[in-house]
């Protein structure tokens, strides 16, 4: 029914669509960033943020501010928005929104699991969890003493259970490096999310398809780049790549075999959209890659708002907010650490 979402979409999701676009207009603009960059102290930043959506959240913070406080409050804003929207969401939007947060959920589970296995205090760990990825039984994660038990007792009831059961065996649970486990789960999650979006069909499938394949390809790129020189073998590497995206499947062969940045680059440049990204980088220069990829992601996310009647705006809003929080963190850190020369290196202007 592509092209006819316009007729049905608003029955269930028109209101939230309006709401999320409203939230989107609350994102900081270039002018806001310019003002923030002029700040000399964290209190200045707070003052500058008073006029924005973050104002009410920061208003009652006592004066010796820390960057972590600012970031926490900003995250709280996103979480509040998100939970309100989630509460109002009808199916299948609700499920879609849940899918958006599974990524955080994976991070939280991994965090709690590692913490538990190292006998850390549960409350301390819960505080560190990303509030977007919370689920009801998360506190009970701490009862388990081994990974296998954890899966049997707790994870089986969470939405993540299929990812565990599909991609990890019982031995993996005990022995696998936690970082590899995280990425294996994330891969399963991305595949599932992409399949879910395809099932939704229409504009959502189209737009989300683009976003998710970018995400998948970026992960593939990062995994390759970060595993150069580590003990991760080619086959292990391949197992962490998602089963879709522009690089799938031929690009993955090349990536899996790549041994240095230039090989990765030549593998990626076979895809026209990525060629444009890589032309921004000099040869052998991988430091700036993160920022360039962030910029590309933000560009794509912003583009989703140009189209109406699809769910990707929710995903995009979450991602953009997160990017914005990262930006604020960067500015605050630069100000706090007196490194204002570097301030522009970290900001990805959203619009």
């Amino acid at each position: 029914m592509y092209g006819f979402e316009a007729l049905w979409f608003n029955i269930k999701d028109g209101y939230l669509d309006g709401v999320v676009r409203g939230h989107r207009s609350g994102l900081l603009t270039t002018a806001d960033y310019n003002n923030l960059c002029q700040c000399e102290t964290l209190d200045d930043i707070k003052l500058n943020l008073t006029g924005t959506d973050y104002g009410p959240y920061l208003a009652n913070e006592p004066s010796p501010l820390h960057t972590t406080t600012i970031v926490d409050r900003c995250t709280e804003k996103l979480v509040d928005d998100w939970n309100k929207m989630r509460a109002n969401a009808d199916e299948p939007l609700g499920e879609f929104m849940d899918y958006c947060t599974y990524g955080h959920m994976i991070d939280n589970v991994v965090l709690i699991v590692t913490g538990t296995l190292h006998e850390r205090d549960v409350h301390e760990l819960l505080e560190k969890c990303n509030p977007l990825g919370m689920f009801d039984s998360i506190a009970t994660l701490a009862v388990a003493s081994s990974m296998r038990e954890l899966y049997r007792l707790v994870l089986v009831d969470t939405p993540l259970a299929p990812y565990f059961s599909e991609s990890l065996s019982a031995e993996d649970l005990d022995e696998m490096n936690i970082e590899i486990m995280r990425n294996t789960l994330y891969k399963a999650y991305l595949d599932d999310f992409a399949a879910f979006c395809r099932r939704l069909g229409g504009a959502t499938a189209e737009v989300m398809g683009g976003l998710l394949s970018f995400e998948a390809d970026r992960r593939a790129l990062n995994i390759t780049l970060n595993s150069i020189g580590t003990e991760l073998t080619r086959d292990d590497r391949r197992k962490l790549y998602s089963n879709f995206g522009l690089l799938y499947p031929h690009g993955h062969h090349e990536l899996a075999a790549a041994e240095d940045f230039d090989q990765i680059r030549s593998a990626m440049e076979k895809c026209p959209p990525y060629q444009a990204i890589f032309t921004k980088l000099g040869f052998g220069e991988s430091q700036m890659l993160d920022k360039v990829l962030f910029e590309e992601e933000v560009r794509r996310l912003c583009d989703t708002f140009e189209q109406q009647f699809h769910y990707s705006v929710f995903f995009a809003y979450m991602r953009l907010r997160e990017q914005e929080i990262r930006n604020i963190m960067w500015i605050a850190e630069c100000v706090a650490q007196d490194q204002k020369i570097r301030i522009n290196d970290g900001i990805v202007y959203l619009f």
Partner: protein
Amino acid sequence: MSNRYVCVPTVTVLAMMKARLTGAVKGHALLKKKADALTLRFRQILKKIVQTKQEMGKTMRAGAFALTEAKYAAGEFATTVLDSVESASVRVNAQQDNVAGVKIPRFERVMTGASDTKMHLTGLGKGGQQVQYCRKAYMTAVELLVELASLQTAFLTLDEAIKTTNRRVNALDNVVIPKLENTIAYIKGELDELEREEFFRLKKVQANKRKVADELVKRRLRENGPTPNGAKGALHDMMPGVDQDADIVF
């Protein structure tokens, strides 16, 4: 006069004291040299400490910023790092340097090569590059800090050593040597006194003897008539060396 050693003023003791004084003077000179050497090193270290501390400020700032960059790229990874600690791959070896007889501990960074794969894989999905960059920044910081630690322990040890040495030098300079000198002077004074007493006694004995001899001569003259030369010669025989050798004593 308490500023001297209590001793019997004899020539033997005097010789002993003189020997002690020479020793003290020599020791003083040596200690002075040592103190100078230590102070020289100390000054160098001081300069270096201040420099390194300031450099450390910079390095730590760079490290903190690299951490910010890593957080920016990789999200919150602190807990993962805290939880994946196993065995230290960076350790220090303590060695000892010898400066003018003072043992100064010196630290040296060693890489044990313990597996830290976990750290290598941190941020695998995103931001791993920045994490590794941050890791390197902190490695530099560790290196600098180890150096600083060496300097600092050296500073503390040297400070202590210099203090003791100086105390010794001062003790020699202000207490031992003057005391010895006083003692020697005292012994010499005493010995002189004894000498003078002896001389006076001898003089008295001489006078007495002369008186006795005069009376004897007078008596002989009274009895035998005056023989002036013979009497004088006899007297000279009785006190040999009184006239010629007077400067032997003094």
